């Protein structure tokens, strides 16, 4: 029941920020609230799973136990970043209010035991994020925000329509229509019908839009590029995982009856996403856009892994968790670099490792993790997904995937590494970087290494449990 604090605390804090006293301490309230929700989520991850409560609408199963600490810890890192930025750009009350609303909605989506409540949570994160993307000094951010909201509205609309089709399918099968996650497996145990197939296809397409998967991915590079770094990290590492958990729920429930459809659709949109992002990675000279295209690329890999199921599932989870920390490290570092150089053009930046040692180091290590180097979890995760492609006989997908990944590997390295090494192109003055200001990214890095080297038994058990739920029967 104390899981409910993950939603209640941010809401209470958001209301506190609206008061005169709270407004002056907005960034502190954000940080303290995020830290508290992180502790609550982490403690709960170690406790036994709980039965649904709050009328059955909320629950704390293994998936919640695995993802709640991740998104709350990442949000805490983002709050640290926002607090550090207060020295140069005061955090507005409006921003902190929306960020806390975003956190409450993200946690609500995660804790939901009802698909429609999950949809409502994700829709609320979208409305909050759309406003946070807008920067007063950047008119282009308004257009990016609008495109984000437009695509999200259409994507989530498709999800809603898909859910309606799924309930219609249950009615036609003589079952009481339900969207409660714990009741759905029994209600959909019969053979698949056209309503169900249509519903599953629409839901996957709609969630794919939120994840930045092809064909409706074009909002992502623009939004990630124009949004403040903290908001980009929220979208890429927090909201992305909430939408992904919704997709996990659908796959878990419908894989037994509609396995071929799920595998086919996810493999197709996954491979298409990897293809379009690879072409864009080769062409771009904007490091924030490059990271955005890399995010689409990774979403594609995740879709492929999820489509395969079976032995890819554990690797997929490893990849997803690593990906969350990688995105948080890279997007927050990109914000620092942009603030320092006043440009996003990779050709204007060099010698980062000397100029901004911590940012240079995190960009370097983050890029290695992004490219799937050992000893990071992304390496093992990608390896397991590739292995599953071979064992499942998907040789065409395997060959295309390997080719595209190699090209994106070279394109990313060719653009990022000259930024890190070499001599600075312009003399810059910048206060000396304090190690404490980079502590949150260091924690993310440690967690990333833990996922690649030694996964504690408790986390491993949760991952195995969740992976099992995603496997094909």
């Amino acid at each position, binding site marked *: 029941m104390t899981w409910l604090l993950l939603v209640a605390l941010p809401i209470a804090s958001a209301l506190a920020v609206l008061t005169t006293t709270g407004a002056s301490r907005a960034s502190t309230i954000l940080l303290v609230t995020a830290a508290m929700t992180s502790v609550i989520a982490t403690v709960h991850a170690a406790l036994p799973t709980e039965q649904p409560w709050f009328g059955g609408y909320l629950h704390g199963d293994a998936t919640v136990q695995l993802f709640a600490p991740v998104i709350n810890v990442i949000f805490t890192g983002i709050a640290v970043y926002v607090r550090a930025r207060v020295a140069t750009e005061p955090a507005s009350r409006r921003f902190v209010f929306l960020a806390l609303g975003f956190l409450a909605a993200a946690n609500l989506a995660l804790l939901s035991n009802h698909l429609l409540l999950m949809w409502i949570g994700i829709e609320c994160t979208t409305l909050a994020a759309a406003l946070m993307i807008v920067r007063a000094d950047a008119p282009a951010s308004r257009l990016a925000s609008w495109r984000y909201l437009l695509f999200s*509205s259409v994507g989530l609309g498709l999800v809603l*329509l898909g859910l*309606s089709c799924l309930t219609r399918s249950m009615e036609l099968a003589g079952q009481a229509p339900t969207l409660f996650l714990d009741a759905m497996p029994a209600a959909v145990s019969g053979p698949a019908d*056209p309503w169900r197939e249509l519903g599953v296809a629409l839901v996957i397409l709609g969630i794919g839009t939120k994840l930045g998967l092809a064909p409706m991915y074009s909002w992502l590079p623009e939004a990630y590029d124009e949004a403040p770094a903290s908001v980009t990290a929220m979208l890429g590492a927090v909201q992305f995982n909430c939408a992904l958990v919704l997709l996990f729920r659908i796959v878990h429930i419908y894989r037994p009856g509609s396995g071929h459809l799920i595998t086919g659709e996810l493999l197709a949109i996954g491979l298409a996403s990897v293809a379009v992002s690879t072409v864009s990675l080769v062409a771009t000279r904007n490091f924030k856009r490059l990271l955005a295209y890399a995010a689409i690329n990774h979403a594609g890999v995740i879709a492929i892994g999820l489509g395969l199921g079976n032995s890819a599932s554990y690797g997929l989870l490893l990849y997803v968790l690593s990906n969350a920390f990688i995105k948080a490290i890279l997007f927050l570092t990109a914000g620092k670099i942009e603030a320092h150089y006043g440009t996003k053009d990779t050709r204007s930046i060099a010698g980062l490792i000397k100029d901004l040692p911590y940012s240079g180091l995190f960009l370097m290590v983050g890029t290695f993790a992004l490219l799937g180097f050992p000893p990071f979890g992304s390496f093992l995760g990608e390896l397991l997904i590739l292995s599953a492609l071979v064992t499942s006989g998907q040789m065409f997908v395997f060959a295309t995937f390997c080719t595209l990944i190699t090209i994106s590997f070279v394109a990313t390295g060719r653009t990022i590494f000259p930024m890190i090494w070499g001599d600075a192109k312009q003399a810059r003055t910048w206060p000396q970087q304090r190690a404490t200001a980079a502590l949150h990214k260091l924690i993310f890095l440690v967690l990333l290494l833990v996922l690649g080297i030694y996964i504690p038994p408790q986390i491993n058990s949760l991952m195995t449990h969740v992976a099992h739920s995603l496997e094909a029967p």
Partner: protein
Amino acid sequence: MNPLLIAFVGVLLVPLFVASWRISLFGLAVQGLLMAWISYQLDPTLDSAAAWVRMVDLVVVRGLGTPLALYAVLRSQRATARHDVISPNLMSWTLAIALVLVAFRFADMLVPGQGNEHSFVAGAATGLLLGLLVLATQTGPFSQMVGALRIENGIAFFELGTTHRPLAMLIAQALIMIATVLLFRWYLRTLPRPTMTKVSAVEGMNL
């Protein structure tokens, strides 16, 4: 075929051929009110809170609030009367009519035979496909808003045929719709306007 369905499909289709933002908004208003009428026909007793929430959503939010909210902004901006929701050429018009036929064919395949269910599928598919057509062919914020709202209305039309959702969920959905429309209004006020007054005849393919 149900006359209300014919009216609903008509109000989805006709505003596409009239290059006026007022007609586009009027079309959205009539869609909302027609849905309310259909909902009332299906459940005239209105004996549950959920039925009332749905009615308020259809009449107040979709039928009146949304078009009026956008109308007020455009009027204050003195937007020129002409505004194409799809490119004004034979290709786009043919495509729009073809999509209506596709939607009905799709409904025939999914729900063989006539009846309420067939009508809901045909109407929803028409709304969805025409909304996607608008989104795929337009770059201006107002046109895109109209496209997105047409899709929302298509989904709402389909939901008329489903069992009522829990009351709290219906309220939450209506509140989300209101928040989305308020955001649309804000974007319409703050986004650059050139695309609003552009005559899209020169943008699209002309036959």
